[in-house]
Structure formats: structure tokens, C-alpha cells
């Protein structure tokens, strides 16, 4: 982890958690009949997108929810946003139900939805002003528009903005209510590296100011850069959860090099490591430093071509979760 190790600040009456999910499930009707008299759809078949998720996000913490497409990230986050009710389990935002007690929750959260949802014919300034007027304790709208570098585009219709500009406007509106909890659903998907960096900076600044963040992403780098804790979702459940260090702790490190012609592999004594050799020798180990020292001792003065030694990466863990469970 590179930055933002934030210690929790003020406690909220005993609980440091701004968000808790307990046994949360969410089902969607896949087939439904329409009743004209009541104007309601009566579901006949269901698909369970979220299958028992437990999560908590502490005050001042940036929590990243990772997952492949269709893992259930957005379905979960929408429940936190109060856009739907879970079919089972409970969700508490600041200790409140985000649907039934929306009035007590909404002014403390800022949301970036997966799709922005802007009326295309309004200008940036009109949208910012209108949104500003819907907020309980808004920050000056022009400041936020400036913070996302859209001041020069203030009078441009939203329909004419680029994807990156639209996303930046999205972030500006989410921050405008000075939220204690930011909920960001794939905020940087489809953005160029520069826009992504500038959005990361805004998010980091928010965390430094004491806000908590729930972020979904399928960019592993984004989670590595920003998150205090990470959960990897797959097929509707949380497959791994913890700090980056905790998540990669159980996964082995890896050493590889081109098989040297003048040395015998039988002389290589690396207890606890597994060795596979063809043209390239690969060792996986839970004791990277010790194994590497033994490899270097074994090699002596021989140059090991293509020598590469690396700790377990989030990518490795992520891919193994995605692979193994798909085989079921």
C-alpha cells in the first residue's frame, strides 16, 4: 500500500463502523408477469446476484470492493445506496436503514453511480446548481466544478462532454454535499490515466479529511493505490477480505530464471519451496527472502538470466479466485 493509512477519528456513539452489511442477499426477477390492474409485476423466476455478503466499513476507511464483471459488486452497492431492498439480511449506514430511514442517511452520503444519469440538455453549471440546491449542507458548487477542472466547460451541455469530463462532474456532485461516506461505483472505468489520477487525488483528499469511502473497481491497481481494506467478490459472495498484506499473505511468492546450463538443479536446496523446471525454472515459496538467498548461493558466480523475484500480488490472488471458483 502506498498512502492513506488513516487512523479512525471521532467515534460515532460507540461504533466505528459507518457501514455494515450482515448476511445480505439480493435477488432479481428474471421472469415476471404483469398485472394491469395493480400496475405491478409479479415475479415468477429469480436470479440471486448477491448470496450472503457480510462487510463493514470503518470511519475514515477506504474500502475497495473488487470483482469480475457480474460478481455482484453493483448489486451490493446499490443496496447501500438505498436504491433497493435486500431480499435477506440487513444493511446499516450510520446505523440506519438506507431505504426506510433515507431522510436520516442521504445528507451524509455522496454517491457516484455506475452510469452518471445526467439530463443531456442541461449545462454543467445548470446541473451543478440544481444538484447544489437539493443538498442539506452543500459546499459552493463553483468550487467543486473548479476542483474537477470543469470551470472552462461550465456552459457546455452535458451531452457534449467527453466520458472523462462527465465522470469528473459526477465526482464533483458526489462531493458537493460534504459527505461522511462516499459510495463510488467504478468511478474511473473508461478514463484516461490522467483523469484517473486526478480522481484518485480527489478521493484521497476526502479520506484525509476524515470521510469513509466504499469503492468498487475492476482495476486492481486502483485498489492497491487507494484502499485500506479490500474485499474480492465473486459469484455473489466475498471470496477474500482484508488489508492488501493480509490478502496476499497466504499466496506464495515467486522466483524465476532461465535454466543455467552449467548448474545442476539437484544441488539446489530450497526447503519449503516447490520447483518446476523446463527452459525456465520457477519456484513458489512462502519464504521469499530465504529461498532467494539459497538460490543465489547455489548460483554462485553464474549469471542467472531473466532472474525475477516477486511477492504475491493482488492480481495473482484475484485471478486464482476467479479461476478456481469458475471450475465448480
Amino acid at each position: 500500500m502506498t498512502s492513506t493509512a488513516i487512523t479512525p477519528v471521532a467515534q460515532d456513539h460507540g461504533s466505528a463502523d459507518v457501514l455494515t452489511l450482515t448476511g445480505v442477499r439480493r435477488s432479481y426477477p428474471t421472469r415476471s408477469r404483469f398485472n394491469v390492474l395493480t400496475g405491478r409485476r409479479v415475479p415468477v423466476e429469480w436470479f440471486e446476484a448477491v448470496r450472503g455478503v457480510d462487510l463493514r466499513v470503518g470511519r475514515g476507511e477506504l474500502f475497495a470492493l473488487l470483482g469480475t464483471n457480474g460478481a455482484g459488486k453493483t448489486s451490493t452497492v446499490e443496496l447501500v445506496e438505498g436504491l433497493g431492498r435486500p431480499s435477506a439480511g440487513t444493511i446499516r449506514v450510520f446505523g440506519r436503514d438506507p431505504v426506510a430511514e433515507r431522510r436520516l442517511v442521504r445528507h451524509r452520503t455522496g454517491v457516484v453511480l455506475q452510469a452518471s444519469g445526467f439530463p443531456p440538455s442541461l449545462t454543467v453549471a445548470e446541473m451543478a446548481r440544481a444538484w447544489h440546491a437539493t443538498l442539506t449542507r452543500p459546499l459552493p458548487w463553483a468550487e467543486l466544478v473548479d476542483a474537477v477542472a470543469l470551470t472552462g466547460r461550465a456552459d457546455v451541455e452535458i451531452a457534449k462532454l467527453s466520458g472523462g469530463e462527465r465522470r469528473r462532474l459526477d465526482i464533483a456532485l458526489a462531493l458537493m454535499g460534504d459527505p461522511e461516506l462516499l459510495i463510488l461505483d467504478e468511478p474511473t472505468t473508461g478514463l484516461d490515466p490522467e483523469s484517473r489520477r486526478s480522481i484518485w487525488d480527489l478521493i484521497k483528499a476526502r479520506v484525509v479529511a476524515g470521510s469513509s469511502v466504499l469503492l468498487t473497481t475492476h482495476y486492481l491497481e486502483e485498489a492497491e493505490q487507494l484502499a485500506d481494506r479490500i474485499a474480492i467478490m465473486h459469484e455473489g459472495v466475498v471470496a477474500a477480505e482484508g488489508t492488501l498484506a493480509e490478502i496476499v499473505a497466504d499466496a506464495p511468492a515467486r522466483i524465476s530464471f532461465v535454466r543455467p546450463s552449467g548448474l545442476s538443479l539437484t544441488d539446489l536446496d530450497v526447503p519449503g519451496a516447490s520447483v518446476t523446471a523446463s527452459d525456465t525454472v520457477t519456484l513458489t515459496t512462502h519464504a521469499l527472502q530465504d529461498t532467494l538467498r539459497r538460490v543465489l548461493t547455489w548460483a554462485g558466480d553464474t549469471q542467472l538470466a531473466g532472474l525475477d523475484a516477486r511477492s504475491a500480488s493482488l492480481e495473482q490472488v484475484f485471478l486464482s479466485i476467479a479461476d478456481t471458483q469458475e471450475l465448480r
Partner: protein
Amino acid sequence: MTALTAPARPAIGSGRRRFGALVRAETTILLRNKTAVFIAVALPFLMAVAFSGIAMDRELLGVTLGIILLATGLLFVVYYTLVTSLVGRREQLVLKRLLSGEPTPWEILLAPAVPLWVLLVIQAGLGVGGGLLLGAPLAHPWALVLAVVGGVSAWTALAVWSATWTRTVESAQLTTMPLMMISLLLSGFSIPLSALPEPVERLAHWLPMTPVVDLLTFAHTGITPAGTPVDGLGAALLAGGWMLLPLLLWTLLGFVAGVRGFRWDPRS
């Protein structure tokens, strides 16, 4: 950026400020949509020209003018335009965005209706005013208010309800057709209700447009749908209340079914 530890800024947000902002944004969006503006502004007047040939003398023409402008206004300005606004906003995911913020569901659903209400009141005012200039009588002015308020509530509620089963702006032309056709045919301003079989005629008075026509006719002529004049304010108010009743029921039904079944997300 701001620090959370700073003393809380005063809460300036209020329901009125929030709703006002949504109404203002919706008005801007409506005025920039040329098709919607044409339907909302020009169509009722075209209908007035088309239908006014039915009435023979000036006095009757005066009454008919108000009826046609109010009725077609309710259908095209309030009902059809609101259905397309709500469905369009849902397709653009604007409704979902608003629902994820502080606006309440009621504020979100009613904000796009407000500029349409204003347009309708202007049109109805022009229709009725023009009618009075043509010499239409005015027996019970308060019944005009009942007709407008009752009609606006019922057709706003019906629009919310219709939006629950309308998936796209294009399909709104189809989904709004049944109520529009029934209202054009069975509310007494294109075909006289007396020309219909008795049971149909009686049923027609419980449809969501006929009571508007009844109330407006009553306001001008003082004659109830049963064809009898009413003496005294008490009896007139009672008669007006009876004509308003179906509109209140449609309002209740439309909002209960509409709000309960409303889909905020095009994918749901």
C-alpha cells in the same frame, strides 16, 4: 478540500428549496425539447380549431372552447408529456441519480409535472377566457377551479401510473393510447353522451375525463350531467362535489398504483 472537523455549516437545504431546484431544472429541460414544446403548446389549440366546428352558436362555442382546451391540455400537456418525461428521465438514469441523492420519490415524480401544470392553467385560462368573450355564461365560477384542480390531479396520477408500464419514450405513444382514446370518445365533447346507450352513458361519468367536462359545463351553464339546473349554493356545491368525486378516486388509484409499482431503473 474541506475538513469534517470544521464547525458544521448551517443546513440551508429544505424540501421547498430542493423541489424548487428540481422544478427549475425540469422546466429548462422541457423548454429545450422542441417536440415536447410543440405537443404541449400547439396541439391543444389545433384540437380546439378542429373540434369547435361541432358547436353551432357563439354561446355554445364559448363553452366548448374552454372544454376542448382544458380536456386536450390534460391529455397532451399533462398526461402524455409527463409520461414521456418520466420514462425519458428513467432511460437517462436521471431518476436513479436523483433517488440516490436527497430528493424524495414524491419530489422526483412531481417536479416534471409542475411546468406542465403551469402550461395547462394558461391554456385553460385562455380557453375559458376566450369562451367568456364569445358570450358563454358563467353560473358557478368556483366549479372552473374544481375542474382544473381535479383534472390536473387525476391526470398527473394517471401519468405516473402509465409510466410504470411504459418502457421507452417511443412506446409511450402506444401505452397512453387507451386512456386518450377513451377520453376523446367518451367524455362528451366529441360525441354527445346522450347519444350513447344509457348504461354506457352512466359509466362514462366515472371515467377520468368526463367529470372534467361535466364540471366545466356546470360552471358555465349551471346544469348538471343529469340535465337539471341546481338552485342555491349548497345544492350547487353538493352537485359539484359529486362530479369531483370520480376525479379524486382516479387520483388516489393512480398515485397508489403508480408509486408502488414505479420502476426507477430501466433495467429492473
